[in-house]
């Protein structure tokens, strides 16, 4: 089974960051994304998932290593100072290299 190394980038952010984050992902070369609402607690306090506008979102994106690098750079520079959020990267393996 031939697999290819990719990066899975996970972002947990306030709902208001949704459009800017997704726009940035697309602009930086991600070919897709997955998203769902989550509850959470962090430096920005507790976010119970009841009001859609105040909820948390978890956004996941599988990308090539160099794209991950660029995404992290832009997150740090443009998003971290602005939005309540965390981001982390992990190594994953996929089958269809061209898809990501």
């Amino acid at each position: 089974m031939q697999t290819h190394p990719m990066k899975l980038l996970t972002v947990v952010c306030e709902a208001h960051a949704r459009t800017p984050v997704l726009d940035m992902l697309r602009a930086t070369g991600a070919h897709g994304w997955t998203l769902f609402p989550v509850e959470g607690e962090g430096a920005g306090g507790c976010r119970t998932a009841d009001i859609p506008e105040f909820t948390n979102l978890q956004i996941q994106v599988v990308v090539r290593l160099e794209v991950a690098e660029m995404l992290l750079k832009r997150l740090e520079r443009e998003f971290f100072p602005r939005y309540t959020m965390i981001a982390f990267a992990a190594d994953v393996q996929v089958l269809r290299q061209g898809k990501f």
Partner: protein
Amino acid sequence: MTLLDAVQANLLSPAVLFFVLGVFAALVRSDLKFPEPLYAGLTIYLLVAIGFKGGVAIAEAGLAQVWLPALAAMALGALIPFWTYPVLRHAGRLAAVDAAAIAAHYGSVSAVTFIAATNYLQAVGQPYENYASAFLAVMESPAILVGVVLGRLATSRGSGTAPDPARTSLRAVVHEALCGRSVLLLVGALVVGALCGPKGMEKVGPFFVTPFQGVLALFLLEMGTVAGRRLGDLRKVGVFLLLFGVLTPLINGALGVLLGHWTGLGLGGATLLGVLAASASYIAAPAAIRVSLPDANPTLYLTASLAITFPFNLTVGIPYCLALARWLYA
């Protein structure tokens, strides 16, 4: 009926009592919480219902009656930031961007406060112009735009954080202001109601009108938990904002009632315009401000509008506006 009687009557209504129950649930750390889709469903229902009712009322009254007070309401919303901003900036010594953000919230309106006010008028037997929903619809956005511009002007001269990822041009803010969920539902339902007229109301009234007050009571239970969870932030915002959150509705409420009187509204309609002016947005404005003035501190504007002004209006502000209108129209 004195102001005290009016407040007391209001406090014993199911809507307010369920709100208090919600606050209590939050304070005792109960696990009571409406799941997000239930919350979304209830707001969709409330906005569509109030919009539709307003639209039918416009169809019956004719646009000729509505446009003048609607325009005045819009202007009032847009102008409120121009007095609140300097007060926040100088009396409150808040950062420019925070002052602009809070000013935007108090110029904009709270749909739930408005709905609770119509509820209250019905309960005390005070008739009102049903087309007042139109004022609600047009007052949401102008102040937000004004606030954003004020804040932008202030920060462009100031430091400014990181490069803007969303390149949130005013164009994006305008799109959000016109096509955002709540404006779209409210204005859309208004137009639908105006097109259908009373014949349409016959069909959907048993869903949008008959159970309306009960749905509102249930929804206020949830809003109570939301406000209650924010009460802990009261310590963080300081005494100035506490006073601001209580006095601003009294002043804006009076302005609204006066304006209603001048533009020819009846006693009920003037009361509602007062309540709209007195209310502060806690959904639409935070969403817009978060995206377009990200440097403003959410704890300040959310606590002020959600944990101070919203409960204050629900309990005291609404009867206050009615008492004022009664005195003015007497």
